[in-house]
């Protein structure tokens, strides 16, 4: 009964920021309206994790998710993709309950980034700071380039086509 007020209150949309902070690093931030222990649980329990890591609104579907969240433990995520499913895998380098996780991304070989997420709780809310550190400027440039040429250009040209079509 005492939960009624919270569940009915319109959730406040917190801002998500993303920035290339250096030659080798990308940083994403977001505040979540929950204590750090809950955010950590959602990040480290595969049953919860697979519900949000591959958002349907982004056209992503997760096929399987294995996580052994301890230092040296591995993870493996498989996404639905054409022509064949795509696997993402690596291992956890640091695990500090309710506060910090560091893991490798090894699907791309040696050019893979190391991801660090920190959870900082303040007044019942948690600030998430997610850093992707690439081994070199070239590795990050290449990641951006490979993602840009296909998707990005198509998007731009679709928008242009729409506009040109309306002339």
């Amino acid at each position, binding site marked *: 009964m*005492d*939960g009624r007020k*919270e*569940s009915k209150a319109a*959730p406040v*949309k*917190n801002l*998500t*920021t*993303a*920035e*290339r902070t250096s030659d080798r690093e*990308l940083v*994403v931030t*977001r505040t*979540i*309206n*929950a204590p750090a222990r*809950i*955010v950590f*649980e*959602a990040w480290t329990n595969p049953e*919860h994790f697979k*519900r*949000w*890591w591959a*958002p349907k*609104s*982004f056209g992503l579907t997760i096929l399987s998710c294995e996580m052994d969240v301890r230092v040296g433990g591995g993870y493996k995520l498989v996404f639905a993709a054409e022509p064949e499913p795509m696997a993402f895998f690596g291992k956890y380098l640091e695990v500090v309950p309710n506060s910090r996780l560091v893991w490798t991304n090894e699907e791309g070989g040696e050019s893979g980034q190391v991801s660090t997420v920190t959870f900082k709780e303040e007044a019942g809310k948690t600030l*998430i700071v*997610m850093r992707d550190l690439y081994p070199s400027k070239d590795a990050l440039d290449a990641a*951006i*380039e490979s*993602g*840009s040429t296909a*998707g*990005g*250009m198509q*998007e*731009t040209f679709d*928008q*242009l086509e729409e*506009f*040109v079509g309306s*002339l």
Partner: protein
Amino acid sequence: MVQYTQTHFDASFAALSDVTRRGVLEQLARADASITELAEKFDMTLTGMKKHVGVLEQAGLVTTEKVGRVRTCKLGVCRLEEEAMWIERYRQLWEARFSELDKVVEELKLKEKSDGRKKRK
């Protein structure tokens, strides 16, 4: 980012408001071409074509590369804009993830609350 997108689209629309520039884009969609070739094709002076290509380049619709004495034009966004677009898509992916995460943590919060009540009983 919002401001970036606004400026970007203003520049794109301005670039596309001219019939010659739209023709140049169509031409470049078929094949890369030098400024000289484009000037001939559109029956224009080199200086005039350079101006048009400059506008398209500013809008990030065309990139040019000078090899020797020939400047070749091709369709494409410049590197900085490409990067800004990529980062914006990356941000949108995380935004989508976090809004799903919001739902998951709301459930976990409720569960923790009801578990807590059970324990107290």
